[in-house]
């Protein structure tokens, strides 16, 4: 099975990769979108003083 990787994909904010599998006839058999990035804001803002949250979460996305 032939495999085509588009890595990285660039028309998005963040990290992504697309893997395309082709069958014997060269037709698309299956396509996967993968998001390889995680930082974990959900965890490390826990317990932070509430007034500090607006100083941390803008760093989720700066685009």
């Amino acid at each position: 099975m032939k495999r085509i990787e588009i890595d990285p994909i660039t028309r998005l904010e963040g990290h992504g990769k697309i893997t395309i599998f082709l069958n014997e006839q060269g037709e698309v058999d299956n396509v996967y979108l993968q998001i390889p990035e995680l930082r974990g804001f959900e965890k490390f803002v826990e317990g932070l003083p509430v007034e500090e949250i607006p100083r941390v979460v803008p760093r989720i996305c700066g685009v």
Partner: protein
Amino acid sequence: MKLKFGIYWGAACGGCDVAILDTHEKILEIADMADIFLWPLAMDFKYKKIRALEDNYLDASFFSGAIRNSENEEIARLLRRKSKVMVALGACAHIGGIPGLANMYTREDVLNRVYRESESTINEEGIIPREAWSEGEYELELPRFYNTVKTLDQIINVEYYIPGCPPVPLQIYSALTLVRDGMLPPKGSVIGAGDRALCEQCPRVKEEKKLTGIKRVHEVIPDPEKCLLEQGLICLGPVTRSGCGSRCIKSGVPCRGCYGPVDDVKDQGFAMLSALASSLDAKEQKDIDAIIDTIEDPLRTLHRFSLAASMLRRKKV
């Protein structure tokens, strides 16, 4: 001859890339000075093109973002091999930045919270991302999510650092002109920033620091003319490198240290702790303890951007 640049983001928000674009019309000068070979935020190049380059082909690469997973590390090492000069761009690559706060937890803590426990997630089977997955003939891989967030120079040799979250656009531009004009300072230098503490540039009036307690923002309406620290608000100005243009302080918001420590300070958070200790208006141990107890969340306040680069580095695992 035109230079050759690579620009990349690891565990980042893209704010450093946008800060490059925020040089506005100067972006045309940047385009004149260098051809870009990688810049996922703004242009469409693939990793395999970079892998195919000769070693040291690029004159300089600018890496923003922390090292959070094996892909960040792999691309950092790849760009190191392909670049004559490696520049850490922004607080995350420089000192770990906000993503470095995850070093208070383990890998499992983070993955469980995000994929299994978060209120907005439905994940009945409790699946978390796996490094390898297969179904029949389909095989996929994901990067390894590390236990510890690292700064760029904990992974590869870094020649220069452009600090800030985000760096001031004109500071990035001036750092790029140093590359263009062959005017780079000794290796290991911070470029595109000042060499003094932010306090020395702060327009607020400073008198004697006699702290009787640390206040939270809802407990005080700060005098707009006076030093924020003297008014009881923790401000990292005394230990933070200048160069930001005092953006936060001018807006009435105390510094959280995104420009990193001044020269010769190893640990920004501990330096601030030391500065606080010498500013307390108390002599007796119990009075000192009472003031210290008013510091809300000292770790994430004093090491807000620098935990990954600090002596603490991470929670013991």
